[in-house]
């Protein structure tokens, strides 16, 4: 059985979808991700779909579900790397993916996640370091 790997990076979970998803695989990913959010106390989920060439209404619904499920588990979801042709198709299909945060690439997605959950624990430390250096 195929499985899509979920990587943990600090407070975040990273998912890169590299294969064409069929329904069972997408449903498994949905379940696995919610489990992982609970297990790892993740605050954010980043899903990279840059290698996905087809997003139909079923896949769109799964993406929306993942975002809503993570939300009620207190984690934010950002979908990154959508191909232009996929974006055009989704809108014509009538699926604007409302309620799903998106970013152009992984880097911007990470920034968005950090700004959404507020990295308050790290910032004061950095400030202190700066003060120390200037003194």
């Amino acid at each position, binding site marked *: 059985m195929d499985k899509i790997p979920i990587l943990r990076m600090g407070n975040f979970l990273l998912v890169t979808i590299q294969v*064409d998803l*069929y*329904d*069972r695989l997408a449903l498994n990913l949905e379940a696995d991700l919610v489990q992982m959010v609970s297990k790892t106390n993740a605050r954010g989920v980043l899903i990279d779909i840059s290698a996905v*060439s*087809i*997003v*139909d*209404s*079923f896949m*769109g*619904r799964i993406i929306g579900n993942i975002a809503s499920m993570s939300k009620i588990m207190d984690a934010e979801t950002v979908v990154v790397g959508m*191909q*232009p*042709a*996929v974006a*055009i*198709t989704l809108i*014509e*299909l*009538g*699926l604007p993916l409302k309620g799903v945060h998106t970013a152009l690439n992984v880097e911007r997605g990470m920034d968005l996640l950090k700004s959404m959950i507020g990295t308050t624990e790290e910032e004061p430390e950095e400030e202190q370091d700066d003060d120390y250096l200037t003194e």
Partner: protein
Amino acid sequence: MIISLSKDNIQVIREQDVVLLRNRVKEVAVKIKMGLVNQTKLITAASELLRNMLRYGGGGFCLIEIVSKGRDNGVRLTFTDKGPGIPDLSLAMKDGYSTGRSLGLGLPGAKRLVNEFDLKSKVGEGTTVMILKWANG
């Protein structure tokens, strides 16, 4: 007058067949030099209809054809199942209507993504959906 240049009939009974069929459609679309956006629209529409066929029709056949009209080339897909059929076609074509628990975008969405769309259904006998996308349409 639309002429069919090549024919390929593929049986779809399992979920995994969807990925296989999407790849076949892609091959054909690339062969007639269809642009990437149109390819994506065609394959997405095909994916919606395949899912319907598996879910409501219990599987069936997909006929993949390269067609030509004058100087235009296109891909025509015909999905045929022997499922229960659709009692109310206009209701089935309405955005947001679904007898399953899905978004109800499949049929109307697929229609928006292609150039020609034809839905025929008889209760108790089955459903046939034809879609056609021109390479530069």
